[in-house]
């Protein structure tokens, strides 16, 4: 059975993973995090990612009327890397979010997405 710390360890084992974090979408708190890169504060980063997700959900809610929006995962590619977020429903409110930043050169997004799916099902089963 996977605990939250093991979950983070497995996420960091994804090829090309630079840093990772688990966060609570409702409150914006960082649950566990690998070491953040220089100049990045983990707590702020968690709160900011929460806002990103909220904005995305708001935007999608407006663009697909007649549909309740539930995000499974979200991928953002920037100049320097890929940012992958996966949302999981839990017994507590959540959703619990796995965030991982991937190296643009070394990472395989499809593989990373697949691995995140696998990790999240094992975390909740």
């Amino acid at each position, binding site marked *: 059975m996977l605990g939250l710390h093991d979950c983070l360890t497995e996420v960091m084992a994804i090829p090309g993973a630079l840093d990772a974090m688990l966060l609570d979408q409702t409150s914006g708190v960082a649950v566990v995090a690998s070491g953040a890169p220089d100049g990045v504060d983990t707590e702020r980063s968690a709160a900011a990612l929460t806002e990103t997700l909220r904005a995305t959900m708001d935007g999608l809610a*407006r663009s697909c009327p007649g549909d309740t929006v539930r995000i499974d995962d979200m991928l953002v590619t920037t100049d320097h890397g890929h940012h992958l977020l996966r949302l999981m429903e839990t*017994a507590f*409110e959540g959703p619990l979010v796995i965030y991982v930043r991937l190296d643009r050169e070394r990472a395989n997004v499809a593989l990373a997405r697949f691995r995140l799916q696998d990790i999240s099902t094992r975390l909740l089963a």
Partner: protein
Amino acid sequence: MAALDTLLAGLAKERSTGALRVGRAGTVFLDEGRVTYMECAQTPGVERILSARGRMPEAALRRLQTDGGTERLLAEGPVTLGELQFCVLGAVLDAAFFLLPSAGTRPKFRPGERHWLGGCWYFDVRGLVRECARRRAHLALIWPSADVDTAPVRPVPRLAGHGVALSRVQWEVVTHADHELTPLELARRLGRSGYSVLQAVRELAAAGLLAPAPSGEERPALPKRSRQAARTKSGPEGGTRARPYQESQPGPAPGPEHGPGSAARADPGPGVRLVGPAVTADPADLELLMRLKKALEELA
């Protein structure tokens, strides 16, 4: 606020193990100086959350408490380890948010006592305090007035616009609000954390989706316009008071070196740094600002 904080910090320093009972408000459980669990009378605990989500009846959980504990809970499988850890984390942070500021009764420490759900997750006291402060600041950012936190939740019967997007918690708040339940009572009924409901209620208030308090209730009176305040606008030494608002807006946050005269201009007291507009928690001020905002919107 400081009392419970400092007491906990002291216990953490001594690496104590036991339970700190804060009157009827709640209990903090520590293990070698780290917080393992926190109960607060105002917020739902893990047992309440799990039963509200239909994972396990509260009675069954209470049986487990005396017989088998968390190991058996995990073995029987209504929750996974990750979920239980996350649930404890959420419940403790929520309890801390409401328990830490309470400073009524004298807390009593009983060494050696443990909670049956302790050991799922460990918190350090400083981190808890920091997180509570962050949450408080976030709430203030959404909607500055704390009045809605304690008043019964009354959603407006009609929308001012054509449509609105609600988040999940907001939806639950709107559907369960019976114009009598306060946010924390709603939280207990929903099995949601108190903080998430407060957050949703403040978001609703900011979106103008909450009805104002009925006229029977006392509205805070408008603050009297003082002569001195009027004079600062035109007086010879004018501007010295209102300045901090303008000063702090453009450019990056001002560093410690403001240039000469800055210390005399804004003296927020020792240890307080003015970044951004001065913050006021006076409900009268907020009320006035809200009414002004509304009036301006109606004009536009």
